[in-house]
Structures are given as structure tokens and as C-alpha cells.
């Protein structure tokens, strides 16, 4: 019974906050609404018995939204929302697409004959996740590691203003380096 109440509170909060993300004028409010929505998602995961993953989601979302708020202020033309303006395009088409996607998903959820529950949850789901990632799902883990490494490299490449090819030419042989402001010692 208490589980049901917690589920409904979290579910309603998650959906309501998700809607408010795109209705607030102020970017700070939108970010916090998204944070609330994703924290409720983490709460639902905790409620389902996945303690480790739920806590990971809660911690990660808190940090991620803090970073997102900084980028919001940097890149949005109207971050405070003091001059309310519409930043939407193709609202009608998108609404039609989203309602039909939700209808398709919901009918699938309600009409599909879901298989019966197989076995019970292990006494320690975190342990079974770890054993799985270090055993049969090792390929997944390795792929995720490579993807994260590729992300680090590509973000640095994309975010660098002037890399070595800009400074030393295509063959990296230009000396001294072609800098807008020359460094000390003529280098």
C-alpha cells in the first residue's frame, strides 16, 4: 500500500515536472524541473529494488543538471526568461507525432501479453549486476568504456579553439608557431 502511494507521488511528479521543463520561461527553473523529474525517475528505480543504480542516477542527475545550468546561462539568448518569448517550432506536427507515439506505446503496453515473472530478485542485485558486467556482459562493459574514452577525445577536439594544426600548420612543421599573440621567448 505504502509502495503504491510512493509510486503514484513519484510518477505524477516526474510527468508534471517533465511537462514544466518546456513551459517555464526561466532556464534555471526549466533545469530544476528536469532535475526533479529525473530524481523521481531515480526514486522509482530505488522503489523497484535497484538500490545501487537508483543512487547512481540520483547523484549523476544532480551533478549533470548543475553543469547544464552553467551551459544554459552561457549559450541561451534569454536565460532568465525576463522577456517571455516562444522558442518553439512546428508545435502542431510535434504534438501529433508525440500523441501518436504515446498511443502506440501505451497500446503495446496494455495489449501485449507480458511473460510471467521468472524467478525472484537475488538477495543482492548490485552483486549480481557486478558479476554480470565482469562476466557474461563483459563485452558491454568494454564497449561502454571505449565509448566513454572516445567521448573524452571527441569533446576535447570539438571544444578546443586552436589545436596544434592551427598553430604549427598541416605538417606540424611551422616554427615559430602561428599564434595571434606570440608567446614569451619568440616561441
Amino acid at each position, binding site marked *: 500500500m505504502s509502495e503504491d502511494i510512493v*509510486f503514484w507521488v513519484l510518477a505524477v511528479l*516526474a*510527468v508534471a515536472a*517533465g511537462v514544466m*521543463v*518546456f513551459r517555464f520561461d526561466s*532556464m534555471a527553473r*526549466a*533545469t530544476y524541473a*528536469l532535475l526533479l*523529474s*529525473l530524481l523521481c*525517475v531515480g526514486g*522509482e*528505480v530505488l522503489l*523497484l*529494488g*535497484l538500490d545501487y*543504480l537508483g543512487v547512481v*542516477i540520483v547523484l*549523476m542527475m544532480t551533478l*549533470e543538471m548543475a*553543469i547544464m545550468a552553467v*551551459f*544554459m546561462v552561457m*549559450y*541561451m*539568448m534569454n536565460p532568465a526568461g525576463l522577456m517571455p518569448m516562444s522558442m*518553439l*517550432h*512546428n*508545435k502542431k506536427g*510535434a*504534438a501529433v507525432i*508525440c500523441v501518436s507515439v*504515446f498511443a502506440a*506505446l*501505451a497500446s503495446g*503496453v496494455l495489449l501485449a501479453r*507480458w*511473460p510471467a*515473472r*521468472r*524467478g*525472484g*530478485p537475488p538477495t543482492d*542485485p548490485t552483486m549480481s*549486476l557486478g*558479476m*554480470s*558486467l565482469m562476466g557474461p556482459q563483459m563485452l*558491454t562493459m568494454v564497449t*561502454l568504456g571505449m*565509448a*566513454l574514452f572516445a*567521448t573524452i577525445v*571527441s*569533446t576535447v577536439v*570539438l*571544444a578546443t579553439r586552436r589545436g596544434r594544426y592551427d598553430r604549427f600548420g598541416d605538417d606540424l612543421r611551422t616554427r615559430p608557431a602561428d599564434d595571434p599573440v606570440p608567446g614569451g621567448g619568440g616561441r
Partner: protein
Amino acid sequence: MSLDLLLLLAAALFSIGLFGALTQQSIVMLMMGLELMLGGIIVGASAIWHYITPDTADGQVLVVLAVTVMAVEMAVGFAVVTALFRTREVDMTDMAAELRE
């Protein structure tokens, strides 16, 4: 609380996120829509784990995958916004349409 209700919640979050990703002009807001969609996927994966296959850890691995996709999406998204803004002062999706021509 049941599998149907949790999957409906996941579908609702996914659809709201899709609406945001399709309508928002600002690239940062578009990424918030993508995050909501991934949040829906997390709810769905954990519900499937809890109600259908709690004896294997595959559902949990799917949640780990979704969380990683979230992190990668944020990092690469902001790097692309930074690169776009550096080269052409663009922060809106409609202005970044060079490939259209």
C-alpha cells in the same frame, strides 16, 4: 504499482521528451528533451527487470547502458554547441542548417 503502470509512466516520459526534442529551437533545450526520453527508458528497463526477469541482471545492464548514453549525450552535445558557437555564433537548431544546401 504494476508492470503496466510503470511502462505507461516510461511511455509518458518518453513522449514528453520527444515533444521537447522536436519543438525546442535552442540546442540546450533539445538536449533536455533527449534526457527525459532516456529517463523514460531507464524506468522501462528497471520495470522489465523487476517484473519479468529478476533472476538475470540483463535489465540492470540496460539501465547502466542508458545512464552511460545520458552522460555521453550531454558531453558531446555541449562540445558540439561550443564548436558551433565558436565558429558561427549559432545556438539555435534552425541556424545550423549548412548541410541543407
